[in-house]
């Protein structure tokens, strides 16, 4: 384990930014933290987490897949793929780091999504342990330890220093480059912080929430639950929960007519939208009840069923704070199966 004094943090960031674009959470004008590319004068936010997750760097909301150039009656196909530039995402919390396991399962399984794989290969994730989890946090429900995140490099920030530990080859390479700015250290301060954080985790309002009743093989148990109708009755059908979610991975592919050709792009889609899964014959999910059910069944039942029991939620709590009508996965988990609180 190595550490760097907080007074030298800027120098550390400057060093990192030399070889790759460095993104880190900074406070925005709206009083909330957003990712921004580091430059002299930008400071790491103290906020618990960013509004949008680090997913955006690897699976951006809009991505051009290919292009067609049209000239009169001829069409030329253009492969727009290029090798990605190296980049570093700093300050990813434990929950969001876990989301990459879920995204990787989807995008890196054969045939791998070359666009995603390209970014994963060139991106380094530096995680940051939580110290003050919020009332909306429930990562422990999914077995995540907020005090000890995964990542290429893991960091703990105390009052005076940033403690760092490489976890992967990419991480080790990065730490080697930072050797001049960091010093080897013991793990006492980190252990103390981890202990405190764990205590805090245990006292969170949602600490007792479990996903035990969900998982693979539970489709029949929950699919026809009458609670779906009441849970979804106020749902606006917007995509907020989907678009702030670090694990949602659905997309649509569209052709944009540029006037002189076509840009084929993919963009995030939301299962909450009425035209999601719309096919030639219409839409198999007729009402918002079915769309709403799909989103939560996917995270709590279908995904674990297909992926060795891993849930499709990481408990980051974004949907709890962002949903316009305050409906969210926690309320769903508590109300399904006749287990209303």
């Amino acid at each position, binding site marked *: 384990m190595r550490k760097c004094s907080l007074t030298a943090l800027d120098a550390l960031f400057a060093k990192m930014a030399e070889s790759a674009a460095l993104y880190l959470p900074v406070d925005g*004008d*709206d*009083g*909330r933290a*957003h990712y921004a590319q580091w430059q002299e004068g930008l400071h790491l936010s103290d*906020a*618990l987490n960013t*509004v*949008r997750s680090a997913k955006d760097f690897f699976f951006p*909301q*809009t991505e051009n897949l290919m292009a067609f150039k049209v000239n009169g009656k001829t069409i030329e196909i253009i492969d727009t793929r290029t090798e990605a530039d190296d980049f570093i995402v700093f300050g990813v919390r434990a929950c969001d780091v876990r989301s990459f396991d879920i995204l990787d399962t989807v995008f890196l399984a054969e045939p791998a999504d070359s666009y995603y794989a390209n970014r994963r290969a060139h991106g380094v994730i530096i995680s940051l342990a939580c110290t*003050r*989890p*919020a*009332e909306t946090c429930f990562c422990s429900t999914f077995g995540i330890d907020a005090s000890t995140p995964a990542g290429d490099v893991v960091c703990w920030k105390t009052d005076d220093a940033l403690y760092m530990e490489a976890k992967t080859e990419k991480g080790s390479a990065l730490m080697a480059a930072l050797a001049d700015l960091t010093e080897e250290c013991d793990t006492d301060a980190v252990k103390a912080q981890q202990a405190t954080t764990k205590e*805090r985790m245990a*006292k*969170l*309002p*949602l600490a007792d929430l479990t996903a035990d009743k969900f998982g693979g093989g539970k489709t029949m148990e929950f699919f026809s639950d009458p609670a779906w109708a*009441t849970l979804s*009755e*106020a749902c*606006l*059908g*917007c*995509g*907020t929960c*989907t*678009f*702030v979610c670090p694990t949602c991975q659905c997309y*649509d592919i*569209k052709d*944009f007519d540029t006037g002189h050709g076509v840009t084929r*792009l993919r*963009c*995030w*889609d*939301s299962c909450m*939208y*009425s*035209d999601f899964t719309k096919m030639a014959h219409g839409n198999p999910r007729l009402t918002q009840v079915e769309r709403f059910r799909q989103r939560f069944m996917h995270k709590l039942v279908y995904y674990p069923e297909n992926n060795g029991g891993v849930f499709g939620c990481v408990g980051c709590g974004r949907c*709890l*704070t*962002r949903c*316009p*009508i*305050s*409906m*969210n996965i*926690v*309320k769903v988990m508590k109300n399904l199966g006749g287990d209303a609180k």
Partner: protein
Amino acid sequence: MQTVTRDMLVSRAKALLADGTVDRVLGWKAGEFTYDVTPGVFTDADAMEKEFVYGDFCGANFSKYLLTEARKTEKKVLVFLKPCDTYSFNQLLTEHRFDREKVYAIGIPCDGMLDIHKIRTLSAEGVTGIDTDGESVTVHTLYDGDKTVARADALAERCVNCKSKKHVAYDELLGEDGEIIDSARFDEVAAIEKMTPDERFAFWQDALSRCIRCNACRDVCPACTCEKCVFDNPNSGVENKSPANSFEEQMFHIIRAFHVAGRCTDCGECSRVCPQHIPLHLLNRKFIKDIDEFYGEYQAGEKVGSRAPLVDFMTGDLEPSEAVKRGETNA
């Protein structure tokens, strides 16, 4: 704290359920925390007793839910309307969006609703509970103990700039009706108008670049009730699912605001729900301010059946070139 209490609403709703006037009640259901109440439909007294809550975070405008709820009821659906909601209610009636006969509307006074984001910013993260009492709000937090913030500071933007405490539609009123307020709601618009074009462009580029095109602003908007929105219609020429670039962001927000121009009651739901805190109300209010200044004051939803400014004209209306000059006080 609100003047009307949960018990007042529940007892009135129960009575109307009992006497057969209504068979559905639109109300609020408690969440995990104080602030995360969810709109819900109640059909029996027991459920109401168990789950119905009312308080400073019950800001959702129920009028749009009437589009679906009024179709489901056999008798009438009971809806509680804050003063600002009644304007949306009337506007929807003007546009024939639901059957007035299927609705029983109770006007409830409103003391302003609180904004959880403002409370978090003013107190601390990790809000486990909120007590309001008169002019102060006590916030219970995970790590910073109890914090007190002034109620006035915690009010949602739309409540700070409340335009009316007067109900323009109801079947019955709980408590006292208020007055139309001479609010300062256009001050921010005026401030932007005073900027240079470069500053205005930078301001909006910054705001609109945050858009994630979740459509929450549209989906919550009581004026957006199209059977098929142009942004979801592949044949409209403007359909797109993502804010692919700054043009898409601009186009979405210009068209969204233009489509509700003259129909927007300034209920403020769009800004409330925006997960990216884009000040959408400043777009809508720009149109309202322009309409007021160019064509005379007009409040959408004040009267059922009123003629919206964009489907009306005067032979002596000002020319677009003049309008642009007047709308830009900096010039």
